[in-house]
C-alpha cells in the first residue's frame, strides 16, 4: 500500500505546488520547474547510458555492425566533448553536429516527401472508402491548383477559379478543422492532466 501511495502523494503534492506557483507564486514555480528539469536531464542521461549499454552488449555478444557504428558515433561525440572541455579541440561537438547530425536529419526530413507520396498511394490502394477518396481528392485538388495558379499559361479566369477553390479549402474548411482539432487536443490534455493531478490515473505505479 505504501509503495503505491507514496508516489501518488508526491505526484499530487508537486502538481498542486506547481499549479499554485504558476498562478500566484512565480519563485516557487521557478524552483520546482528547475528541479523537474534537473530530474528530467538525469533521466535522459540514464536513458542514453542504457542505450549505450544495450548496443555495447549487442556488439560484444552478436558482433552487430550497426550497434558498433552507433557506439562509435556516441563515443566520438563524448570524446570530442571531453577534449573540448580540456581545450584540446575547439567546437569539436559542434563540428560533429554540423558534419554528421545536421545532414542526416535534413536528408531524413527531405525523404519524407517520398514516404508521404508512397503512404498516400498505399492508403488509396488498401482502403477505398469514401473518406480515403475525400482525403486523396483534397490533396490532389490542392496540388493541382497550386501548380496551376503558379503558371501563366492558363487564362486569368481559370486561374482565379483554382485560386478561389484553394482559398476556400485553406481559409474556411482547414481553419475550422484545425481549430476543432486544437480545441479537442486541449480538452483531452486538460482532462488527462486533471485525472493525473487528482490521482485517478497513476502511470508511475504500473
Amino acid at each position: 500500500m505504501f509503495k503505491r501511495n507514496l508516489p501518488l502523494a508526491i505526484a499530487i503534492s508537486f502538481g498542486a505546488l506547481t499549479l499554485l506557483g504558476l498562478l500566484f507564486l512565480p519563485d516557487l514555480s521557478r524552483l520546482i520547474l528547475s528541479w523537474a528539469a534537473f530530474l528530467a536531464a538525469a533521466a535522459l542521461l540514464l536513458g542514453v547510458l542504457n542505450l549505450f549499454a544495450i548496443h555495447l552488449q549487442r556488439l560484444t555478444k552478436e558482433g552487430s555492425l550497426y550497434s558498433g557504428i552507433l557506439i562509435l558515433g556516441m563515443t566520438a561525440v563524448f570524446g570530442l566533448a571531453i577534449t573540448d572541455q580540456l581545450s584540446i579541440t575547439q567546437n569539436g561537438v559542434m563540428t560533429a553536429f554540423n558534419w554528421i547530425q545536421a545532414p542526416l536529419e535534413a536528408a531524413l526530413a527531405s525523404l519524407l516527401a517520398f514516404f508521404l507520396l508512397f503512404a498516400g498511394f498505399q492508403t488509396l490502394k488498401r482502403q477505398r472508402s469514401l473518406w480515403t477518396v475525400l482525403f486523396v481528392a483534397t490533396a490532389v485538388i490542392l496540388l493541382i491548383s497550386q501548380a496551376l495558379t503558379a503558371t501563366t499559361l492558363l487564362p486569368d479566369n481559370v486561374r482565379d477559379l483554382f485560386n478561389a477553390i484553394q482559398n476556400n479549402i485553406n481559409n474556411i474548411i482547414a481553419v475550422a478543422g484545425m481549430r476543432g482539432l486544437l480545441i479537442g487536443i486541449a480538452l483531452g490534455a486538460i482532462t488527462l492532466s486533471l485525472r493525473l493531478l487528482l490521482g485517478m490515473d497513476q502511470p508511475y505505479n504500473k
Partner: protein
Amino acid sequence: MSGDFIGLLIGLILTLFIYSYVVGDNPLYRLSVHLLVGVSAAYSAVIVIRHIILPVANQIIQNPTERESLLWAIPLFFVLLLLLKRAPGLAWLSNNSVALLVGVGAAVALLGALTGTLWPQITAVAASDPGYQTIIIAILTVLTLLSFQFTGRFKKDGQWQRPVWQRGIVHIGRATLIITFGVLFVALLNTSLILLSSRLGYFLTQLQQQLP
C-alpha cells in the same frame, strides 16, 4: 583538403546513404540511421550536461552552504531514487521520481492547454469579423468537435448507435477533419519537397565552389 570540404564530403555521402532508401531498405540506410541515433543521443547528453548538470554542480561546489545549494539536495535525492530502478527489491522507489515528473508535467500541461490553446482558439472565433465565413468556420469547428464524441447507446443487437440528432451532422464534421488532413498532407509534402530541393541545391553549389 580543407576541413569544410571534408565536412561537405561526409555530409554528401551520408545524405546519399539516406536517399538510398528510395530503392528499398538496405544496409547503407540502416548504417546511417544507427550513426544518427548514436550521434544525436550523445549530442543531447552533452547539451544536458553542459547546460543543466554542470551549472548546478558548479553552484553546489562553489557555495555548498548557501540556501540555493542546499535546496538542490531534494532533486538530487530524487535522482538517487531514479538510479535504484535497476536495484532488485528497491526498484519501486524510482516510481517516486517519475511521479514528481508526472505531477509537475500535468500541472504545466493543464495551464498550458488552458491558456495556450483553448482560450486563444475560443477567443479567435469571437474576435473574427462577423460574416458568413466566420459563421461557417464556427459551425464546422463545432461539428468537427462533435465527430470526436462517442457517447451513444447500444441497440438490441449489441451495435453502438449515436443519438439521432448527431447521426447526419457528424459526417460533416468528419468530412471537415478529412479535408484538413488533406491540407496538412499537402503542406507537409510541399515542405519536404522544398527541403529536398534545397539539400540537393546546397550540395551542388558547395561542390561547384570547392572543386577546382
